[in-house]
């Protein structure tokens, strides 16, 4: 069964200059109830891996360096 990959605009943005995932931080990943954030180990930065966001904001609130911003998902905006 052939499948396509359709790009979507993601609501969670990470400021890579501020993100300290390379120092072992995983706070945003740990607090997400939907488990949609992940760490890119090559870059040592967090990123939104799955477009399944409830825009509930613990990732933004608990980030120790203020690297995470939650936008309202485009379809709702």
């Amino acid at each position, binding site marked *: *069964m*052939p*499948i396509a990959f359709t790009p979507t605009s993601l609501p969670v943005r990470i400021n890579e200059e501020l993100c300290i995932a390379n120092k072992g931080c995983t706070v945003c990943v*740990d607090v997400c*109830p*939907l*488990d949609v954030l992940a760490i890119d180990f090559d870059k040592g930065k967090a990123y939104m*891996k*799955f477009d*399944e*966001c*409830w*825009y*509930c*904001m613990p990732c933004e609130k608990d980030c120790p360096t203020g690297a995470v911003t*939650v*936008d*309202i*998902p485009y*379809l*709702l*905006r």
Partner: protein
Amino acid sequence: MLYRRLKRVRVDITNRLVATRLLTAADGSIAGAMAFDCRTADFHVIRAKTVILATGAAGRLGLPASGYLFGTYENPTNAGDGYSMAYHAGAELSGIECFQINPLIKDYNGPACAYVTGPLGGYTANNKGERFIECDYWSGQMMMEFYRELEGGNGPVFLKLNHLAEETIGTIENILHTNERPSRGRFHEGRGTDYRQQMVEMHISEIGLCSGHSASGVWVNEHAETTVPGLYAAGDLACVPHNYMLGAFVYGKIAGESAAAYCANTELAELDEAQVERERARVWAPLSRPDGLPPAQVEYKLRRLVNDYLQPPKVTRKMEIGLARFADIRADLEHLFARDPHELMRALEVHAIHDCAEMAARASLFRTESRWGLYHHRVDHPETNDEDWFVHVQLKKVDGEMQCFKRPIEPYIIDLNEHEKTAYQKMRIVKAESAQIQAQIKE
């Protein structure tokens, strides 16, 4: 606070296990639960004398008008897994036909909270800025009046705050933009909505199952016992109508105490290897398929069908067609494929959503009357019929099939005055009457 308490008493916490089925003993009592890790896909068998289900609402049942699968009213983590697990363990569910439908901020799909702003002077208004309901507290009849206004010439419906004083609006903003759904301020900002200037457009939510706000849940008695020995339930999932958060805490305590007492007098049941193997095969199947249907696509179609065929006003023929479409989707479940443990979680959630959709249709078809305003508004059975239907509608798995039956209502513990029994039906503000009262006041 809860977290600190759990830490202090050294409760093991695991946050990334997705429970999929309960284990039962030969006599039908509880023997534990099965789960998989949504990061590694490891399969876990948890043997236990008792299980307390506290998995929340079935929040991913209907599709929000935005079309965004996770833009639900309920936390979308709660896909209805608990309803499905209780059902397959043989527990009775109750009031499933009493859907949850809420008045929400359009598109944002979070609570507009007219009832929170009520004590400060805010209210639900029509497009003329006028009140049309006596009470902003969420109920089926309130939703019926909301629906009528929304669909009628006075729609849409709004949250009105722009008549209030600056300091009052400041207080309201402080409450609404920091509690429950704190991103709401960001949403209003994006739309250029200021409570001082504009009313906030509201809309009707997708349907869900949630006893906390309606009555649809796993049947429990006053000890939080389900009909399966050793299985307890609390919170939005347990049929304790309109229990909200306070009720969840109270019933959580009751469930814990009841379960502890049960544990003290019960032996751990034997492990049924056949059950484990069956469930392991079901859970891992989507990972083993080289290709197939992506979970998000099947979920979208299933939930779009839920909207098309189950969203009230309920129509018998539509719900029958809905059941036929859900049967088609059941076949699709055998073709779900997942490329990683995260997608596996979504694939298994589609199974739970499918169970909830079928339960919602069957319970609704069984109750051939209308009750609770919009929650169970059947166009072809429009009257409330207390003679035949002042009962609970129960739903249970019997010989592998979904069966509905009646359970009598226990007598009121506190007697109600006659006039108190009709307040629910008098939700709409009657213009002529209010004019008459005004006239009397002047006299």
